């Protein structure tokens, strides 16, 4: 039997990135995936006969450039050229939509001349400020208890970048950092469609409304991502998100990674405070010097290791990680492509956003605070089969939408709430694309409860822990243990629950692998 240097638990994209990077460093790496396929929530799956769709993540907007270059993903078939960038379309019932072209609205159409100017200024400012935070994504959060020279140097770089902004801009950066996105938008914009889109983007994937304090951070997080070197740019990968996974898999295989699917880990074996292997559900035990858990941090601690091996204070912190999701995924198999009113052909191939104003997003958020779904949900829609006909039968169309707000702990329960929520979503779609309802051949609505069960994401949260100020950087996943290592020697965390967070970035996986290599683990 082959012996492994490292075992990666969880074959989601972060697990695969981690495995590939570790393997490239000369380690013999095994990936254990519970499902029949690797890729986690970034797979391309068939949801109706002949219809395939990206599982949960459907837009690529933050795959980290270091991941792309380290794993040579472009050589392995991933296309992230500027020509692949798709626009964002802010839909409106009051008139024509607003379209953000290129990388997050380099060109804006459908706005007034003053609106154009205001956007140009705000966009530049947002990217400038997001750029300050960007370098923090690809490294360990600073270790406050014992700052290494490297930590200090990298923090120094951030300070320097801040200084470079100039006095006025630096003050403004600090002023707005923890603001709510709605207030900032009101300061600088007047177009409700544009403000609605930005409010939506800022709060997508978190339990925040545009008027919740710190909601602007979500927009920075998004804009700190880039594609093809352009900040904020988004791509609909050909073949769905599974194509990204395939490229990472090729890199992993080339580096010599072994993966085993349908192989759930039952337990991480700890001996004398050190992780020494993984016990499988089948009873088989595999040993390795380093165990990398690329699954949820709470699952790792409570289910795989067990609370006995940790100190109570640590358990308390892990227990308190907030990770109840608010986003649902809707996959529709349609007889024919829908027609969104006022949107041109290029727009249909992009991202269509129903979030007509910040007020609308806020009103959609309100019920979720009390365990109810939005009666008029907000959503981002893609029609991936328009650009990639392999995803749907001839003439038919796939609609993929991420919909908010769908609280994980729905008070009435999702068994009875699901149908009602689907009706609410369809009513919204019908408003913007009249006649779409009649063309639905099959509808699959994944509530956070479904996402939890299907993708093993507790709370159905794609960040594996709310991505808010108190659960970012040094506090992610928990304060004191943000550097990918854990209280158990030889056990590392590499999933979205670790810094910087979720989305198809590969950054947590990359950072964790770098940490392990640096520690000679």
């Amino acid at each position, binding site marked *: 039997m082959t012996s492994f240097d490292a075992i990666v638990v969880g074959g989601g994209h972060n697990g695969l990135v981690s495995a590939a990077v570790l393997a490239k460093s000369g380690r013999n790496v095994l990936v254990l995936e519970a499902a029949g396929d690797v890729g986690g929530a970034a797979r391309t799956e068939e949801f109706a006969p002949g219809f395939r769709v990206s599982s949960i993540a459907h837009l690529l907007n933050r795959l980290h450039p270091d991941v792309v270059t380290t794993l040579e993903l472009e050589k392995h078939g991933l296309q992230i050229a500027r020509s692949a960038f798709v626009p964002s379309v802010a839909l409106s019932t009051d008139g024509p939509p607003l379209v953000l072209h290129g990388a997050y609205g380099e060109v804006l159409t459908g706005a007034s001349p003053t609106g154009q100017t205001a956007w140009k200024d705000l966009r530049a400012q947002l990217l400038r400020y997001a750029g300050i935070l960007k370098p923090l994504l690809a490294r360990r959060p600073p270790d406050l208890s014992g700052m290494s020279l490297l930590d200090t140097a990298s923090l120094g770089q951030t300070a320097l970048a801040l200084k470079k902004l100039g006095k006025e801009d630096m003050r403004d950066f600090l002023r707005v950092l923890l603001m709510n996105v709605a207030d900032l938008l009101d300061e600088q914009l007047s177009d409700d469609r544009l403000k609605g889109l930005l409010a939506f983007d800022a709060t997508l994937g978190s339990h925040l409304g545009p008027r919740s304090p710190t909601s602007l951070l979500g927009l920075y997080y998004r804009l700190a991502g880039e594609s093809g070197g352009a900040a904020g740019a988004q791509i609909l990968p050909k073949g769905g998100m599974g194509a990204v996974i395939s490229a990472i898999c090729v890199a992993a295989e080339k580096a010599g990674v072994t993966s085993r699917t349908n192989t759930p880990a039952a337990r991480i074996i700890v001996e004398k*405070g050190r992780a020494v292997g993984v016990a499988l559900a089948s009873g088989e035990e595999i040993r390795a010097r380093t165990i990398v858990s690329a699954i949820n941090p709470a699952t790792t601690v409570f289910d795989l290791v067990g609370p006995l091996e940790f*100190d109570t204070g640590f358990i308390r912190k892990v227990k308190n990680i907030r990770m109840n999701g608010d986003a649902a995924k809707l996959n529709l198999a349609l007889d024919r492509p829908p027609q969104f009113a006022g949107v041109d052909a290029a727009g249909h191939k992009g991202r269509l956003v129903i979030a007509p104003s910040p007020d609308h997003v806020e009103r959609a958020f309100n019920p979720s605070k009390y365990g109810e779904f939005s009666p008029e949900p907000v959503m981002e829609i893609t029609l991936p089969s328009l650009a990639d006909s392999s995803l749907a039968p001839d003439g038919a169309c796939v609609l993929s939408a991420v919909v908010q707000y769908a609280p994980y702990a729905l008070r009435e329960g999702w068994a009875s709430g699901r149908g009602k929520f689907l009706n609410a979503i369809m009513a919204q779609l019908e408003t913007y694309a009249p006649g779409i309802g009649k063309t639905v051949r099959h509808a699959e609505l994944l509530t956070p409860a479904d996402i939890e069960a299907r993708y093993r994401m507790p709370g159905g949260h794609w960040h594996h822990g709310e991505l808010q100020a108190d659960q970012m950087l040094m506090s992610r996943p928990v304060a004191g243990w943000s550097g990918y290592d854990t209280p158990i020697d030889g056990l590392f965390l590499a999933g979205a629950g670790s810094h910087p967070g979720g989305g198809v970035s590969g950054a947590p996986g990359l950072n964790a692998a770098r940490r392990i290599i640096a520690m000679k683990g």
Partner: protein
Amino acid sequence: MNQQPAIAPSTARAAAQSHFRTLRPGTPFQPRIDALARTNDWYNWAGYRAPHSLWDEELEYFAIRSQAALFDISPMTKYRVEGPDAEAFLNRITLRDVAKLKPGRVHYTAWCDDEGFVLDDGTLFRLSPTRFRLCSQERHLPWLLDSAIGFEVIVEEETEAVAGLALQGPTSFAVLRDAGFADVERLKIFDIAEFPHDGSSQGTSRVTISRTGFTGDLGYELFVPAEHALSLWDRLMLAGELRGIRAIGYAALNRARLEAGLIVANADFVTAVHAVRPNRLRMPDEIGLGFMIDFDKGHFNGRRAIVSARAKKRLRHVLVGLEIEGNIPAEHAMVYYRKSQEVGLVSAAMWSPMAKRNIAIASLARPFGDTIVDDLWVEIYAMRELQYQKLMKRAKVVPRPFIKLDRRTANPPADF
């Protein structure tokens, strides 16, 4: 979620909130103690009104050493820990190996936070294979409940439900025997047993007696359901009349415990949750509890931190017993090296009538008290009619306990 519990009409609400009218509640023994309290010298023990002295501090102390002293320990925080995982749970929390604690036995232990700093010390009673009573100085329920995640165990506070008495002193065994606790002589030190108790009007009950105490003397601790507290008190007082039984307050006990070399949380060290200043936190090794640590038993709270502190020699303090020349108690005196360099502080001190020595417990900054034990001095500020007389007295590091009484452990216990 955001709903308030339904609030009943205002009279019911007022009744439910009336606890604040009793600012400092009494214990189940309060009627008897109040009747004996001639000095009216009360202090606050964990929120309870407890006697500092009852009639004469000095004589109360001598009741411990030459008669039998009855001390109400009901305010001590008590937790019931029960379930198939109780042993594993307690092993994870506390420093000692609970697997080595047999049913019917007690041990003194301590527990730490993640950083290895002592949260509290206390006694752990193993009442059955799956049932324990953890007694402590402070309250820890949220900590215990969070520690219980993943264990099949129930943790319940029973401080109010269970009344406790310490019966200490040379005649304590005879008092128990005369009170009709048959076979109590079989209890060896740290043994526990249950005895029937007929409280007549209050019905029958059982009393748990352990041969334990905080005095370094022959003595027992008795636990009984709160409703049987008074009949138990009366039973002991009646049986002990000719054996010189006396109720005592904390001042007397505090002297006895110092002679026995025992430490008190928040007097000789600051517990981790109370310490505001970071350099007040203490690891077990820094307060003389290092002997409890058992690395062979698997993981326990603070283990990694303690291993690392020992390996990196990051233990900064040491708790020592001192013998000081002269007879002036050195309470809270500074400790000096070569009469000039400040190296620590005395946390408890007295002239010991039993040891006939001037004794103290002090916290010193290592290496003083650890590898450097010579040329240590204490500076005593003796108040003499509104003027301090500064006394620089030589101090010698000596082992604790300061007194060792054979009767404490003698089997069978002597009949004085």
